[in-house]
């Protein structure tokens, strides 16, 4: 299956075709990185499609830099799983996505989903976010009573302070 066919099936296929496309991508490891955006969007699909999309996202590593803008827009999705994975992939992009750190600062401060807040803190660290807003948000999160959020934020502050 070539990449264009896979993406077309994932985006426009029947439910079974979308599931098959997501499953195929989950078998490709890092070679599925080209489909990072489509897989992130597919997290809001049916349970079967979503499960395979998540499996693919876990293993595809960093997305291509061309995907960053689309991933930023997906952080505003109504689907929490899509937001979670968009934030994760932005973090995996590292400093290449640092220009978008304010989006993650907003999620860190205002998301009602603890898992998203934790991932936003993690991603800011991976980006080496060093804006004043990012530093302040991480410092505030480091004081959180949520142990994991506090720990991740503390860790993310370390590169920004060096």
């Amino acid at each position, binding site marked *: 299956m070539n990449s264009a066919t896979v993406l077309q099936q994932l985006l426009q296929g029947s439910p079974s075709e979308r599931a098959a496309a997501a499953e195929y991508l989950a078998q490709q490891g890092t070679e599925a990185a080209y489909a990072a955006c489509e897989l992130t969007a597919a997290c809001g699909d049916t349970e079967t499609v979503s499960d395979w999309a998540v499996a693919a996202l*876990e293993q595809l590593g960093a997305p291509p830099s061309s995907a960053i803008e689309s991933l930023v827009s997906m952080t505003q999705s109504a689907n929490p799983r899509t937001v979670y994975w968009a934030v994760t992939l932005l973090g995996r992009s590292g400093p290449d996505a640092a220009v978008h750190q304010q989006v993650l600062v907003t999620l860190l401060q205002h998301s009602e989903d*603890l898992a998203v807040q934790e991932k936003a803190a993690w991603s800011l660290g991976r980006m080496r976010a060093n804006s004043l807003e990012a530093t302040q948000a991480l410092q505030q999160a480091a004081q959180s009573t949520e142990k994991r959020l506090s720990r991740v934020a503390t860790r993310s502050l370390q590169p920004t302070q060096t």
Partner: protein
Amino acid sequence: MARKKSKFSLLMWLIISGISGGGITGYLKPNIPVIGPLIAKFTDKGQNLTAGSGNLLTESADGLLNNQSSGDYGGSVVAGRLASARQASNRQQQGTVQPTTVAGNQGNANLLIASFNIQVLGQSKISKPGMKELLAHVIRQFDLVAIQEVRAKGDNVIPDLVTTVNSNGSRYNFVIGPRLGRSNSKEQYTYVFNTNTVEHDPSSVGTVNDPKDLLHREPFVTRFRARTQSPAQAFTFWMVNIHTDPDEVPEEVDALADVFQVMQKARADEDDVILLGDLNASEKQLGRLGKLPGMQWTVSGVTTNTRKTKAYDNILFQGQATREYTGRWGVYDLERNLGLSREQALQVSDHLPVWAEFRVWEAPPPTSPVGRPSLYN
């Protein structure tokens, strides 16, 4: 998205632990640092099926098993298993293959213990033609399989799979952990084991307590014992099943060092701890876990993913304590052993099973000639 450790889950845990801790099942023991999940205990649903039904493997292969011979696994489970082990070990493992001798009533002096990440093991996977039969065949190669990535909303996936495992007359059972994960994408761990050769201690089953939330999916632990004619001398051991978060591998393998040490002290009568699973790390990336005194890992110098590009899975233990390890280990190559193409093998999983062999008799502690007492008696 639900918060990971919701008040509801906490309430359920308190209720469950309150009931079981009260002596109804003896499920929790106060000195065990684990949280008790609900354990679905399979009750040998498949055991009444005839051995002849083992041919399901070939009847419904549908492209997954096109080169599989039509052998009947029902009558030769042990022999077939060891033959496969030899194939794998001849290719990849370091030790030599020894002939087996009879112990107990099993015809096998050793236990084959495996770890297998069966990617997205859910209803859609086991509904594929021939898939359950293929997975059952793989499971039957081993006495005890630690499985990662059960992802199913319903509770029938593992019971259905074990029914298929037993469809040839085998007597496998399972224990399964709770759904775990920080996002709303949850996974379960399970152990599937041959009750002819190994048994679990129902009072020593649970999920490791992780109050600092260091691990995305806290390890699922269960204590097992080899079945022999002399239970007091049989090999007993903790199994610690883990699937790390690929985004936080260094932190999680370090945390697993603490888990390992906690489990070593969980019971005064048990020093054998076998930590196994999808670590998302090679033997060179084990961090503090790999630096624990005497820590030994079986998988080394090979890849464990189906695409044969990465080493993710391993089986670890403290070498001086777990002297029951025979030195035999391997990676079960789905393509080679089942005659599958790469594409077909990837439909089974993106990981290959890894395995190691242990003697069924407890080795005495190195500093004492007296064997450990057993709480089974």
